[in-house]
């Protein structure tokens, strides 16, 4: 753009900012959609996560905390823990060990502040006949008295954190991307809810909030991350993020912690001494729909 254009643009911005601030000052305190008017206005002008400065992110975190306080009367600690150096996360599931108990599913729902009545669950455990690997013949509504059922095997499916993620390519507003540690994340404030990414994902790993997630205030997990489990609004897409708020601090993802049989193995793909690398080097591993070339960082094996 020309210099004159720049000047004009700047003047326009200052003018808009002036109007914004003026209105904010005028309408100061009364609640505005559960927020103060200033917060609502700042939310409206909030930038994409990757274009925000550190100060802007901190302000956004403050607004998120105040919004949750107003909505649920709960004090959350919303953080922005950065990725660790030289870490790329990988996951492996031993399907010989998985008994289909769904402990992981429900630990995930609690940990990630998922709506309790909505249909959103990040993990689906598929039940298949032994010897059958046709995913179309799988059932994730199985509900016997005891698992594992004789003659069946179980296959937990969640976001594969693809290294070449088709969902990221599909997003028209770049509200989803892959972080340096390999986790594909969503900026819920930037997502426009078009659901293109859901159509692009071959694993049915992305979920849309058709309604505002219903969270019992007592059960809200207060340990939150901007790109992770902070309470989400209606009309945005969300997905498994390997419990970004936990793993970046060295803790296990909630599903792994909940697994009673130790079928889930998580670790750093760049560390040659990690468990995940031992599994990849010593077990017959496979990935789902490998032929699509999405390079999932999520392996399955049996022994």
């Amino acid at each position, binding site marked *: 753009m020309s210099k004159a254009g720049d000047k004009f643009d700047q003047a326009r911005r200052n003018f808009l900012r002036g109007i914004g601030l003026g209105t904010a000052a005028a309408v100061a305190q009364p609640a505005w959609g559960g927020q103060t008017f200033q917060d609502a206005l700042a939310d409206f002008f909030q930038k994409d996560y990757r274009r925000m400065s550190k100060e802007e992110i901190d302000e956004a975190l403050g607004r998120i905390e105040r919004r949750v306080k107003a909505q649920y009367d709960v004090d959350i600690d919303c953080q922005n823990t950065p990725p660790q150096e030289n870490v790329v996360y990988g996951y492996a599931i031993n399907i010989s060990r998985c008994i*289909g108990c769904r402990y992981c599913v*429900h630990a995930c729902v609690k940990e990630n502040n998922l709506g309790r009545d909505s249909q959103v669950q990040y993990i689906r455990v598929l039940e298949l006949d032994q010897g059958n690997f046709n995913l179309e013949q799988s059932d994730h509504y199985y509900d016997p008295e005891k698992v594992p059922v004789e003659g069946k095997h179980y296959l937990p499916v969640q976001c594969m954190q693809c290294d070449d993620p088709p969902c990221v390519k599909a997003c028209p507003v770049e509200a989803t991307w892959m972080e340096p540690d390999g986790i594909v994340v969503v900026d819920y404030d930037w997502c426009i809810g078009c659901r293109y990414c859901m159509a692009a994902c071959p694993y049915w790993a992305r979920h849309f909030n058709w309604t505002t997630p219903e969270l019992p205030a007592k059960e809200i997990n207060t340990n939150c991350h901007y790109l992770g489990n902070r309470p989400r609004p209606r009309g945005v897409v969300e997905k498994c993020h390997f419990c970004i708020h936990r793993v970046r601090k060295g*803790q296990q993802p909630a599903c792994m912690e909940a697994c009673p049989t130790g079928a889930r*193995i998580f670790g750093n793909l760049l560390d040659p001494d990690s*468990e995940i690398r*031992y599994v990849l080097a010593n077990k017959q591993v496979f990935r789902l729909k490998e032929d699509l070339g999405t390079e999932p960082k999520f392996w399955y094996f049996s*022994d």
Partner: protein
Amino acid sequence: MTMRTAIGLVGTGLLAAFSALVAYAQDSSEPGGNLRFEGYPGAPEIQVVSRIDELFFYPCDECHATMEPNPDIRELDTFHDSEIDHGKGRIWCHSCHQLEDPNNLITLLDEPVGIDDAHIVCGGCHANREKDWYFGAHGKRLVNWQGERTVYNCTHCHNPHSPAIEPRAPKPAPPVRAGLEREPGAEHEHTPIWESHEVDDEP
């Protein structure tokens, strides 16, 4: 190389070989000397969670101190179950428990190991599993993925007297999408279309 250094080298080599032989003889003369399995080379360091506090009957010698060790395979009429659902009838109490000091377990090489080192005993037969466990491909790690590795021992998840994992009730199934109902079969059982729809018989 001069002759003198050559003789010197050979001499040193012989001496080293001799001392190694002596050390081996000493080791093998005392049972359990250096034979005890110390883990795989390159295996990461692990902290094993102790289970002693959870054991109801431990320490065993609270009762067994006053009892004569009896190696016979027999019907047990005390607290212990004589039905061992492990090894398909091949093993009996003192295959794993030390007869002389019941507080200990015992390996195939007759070395006593503590209750919390049960993996050494298990690994005597289940060596592949044990190796996987050392390297983290089997078993359950706790708390973190990074830093110190804390893991459960074999007997934490597997009851050694009946090691198969017990079936359990699953958590609730996911809800069906609002406005939809589950069809009565993942098995694809449909009523034939001519029964579910009214057919106009008249031509």
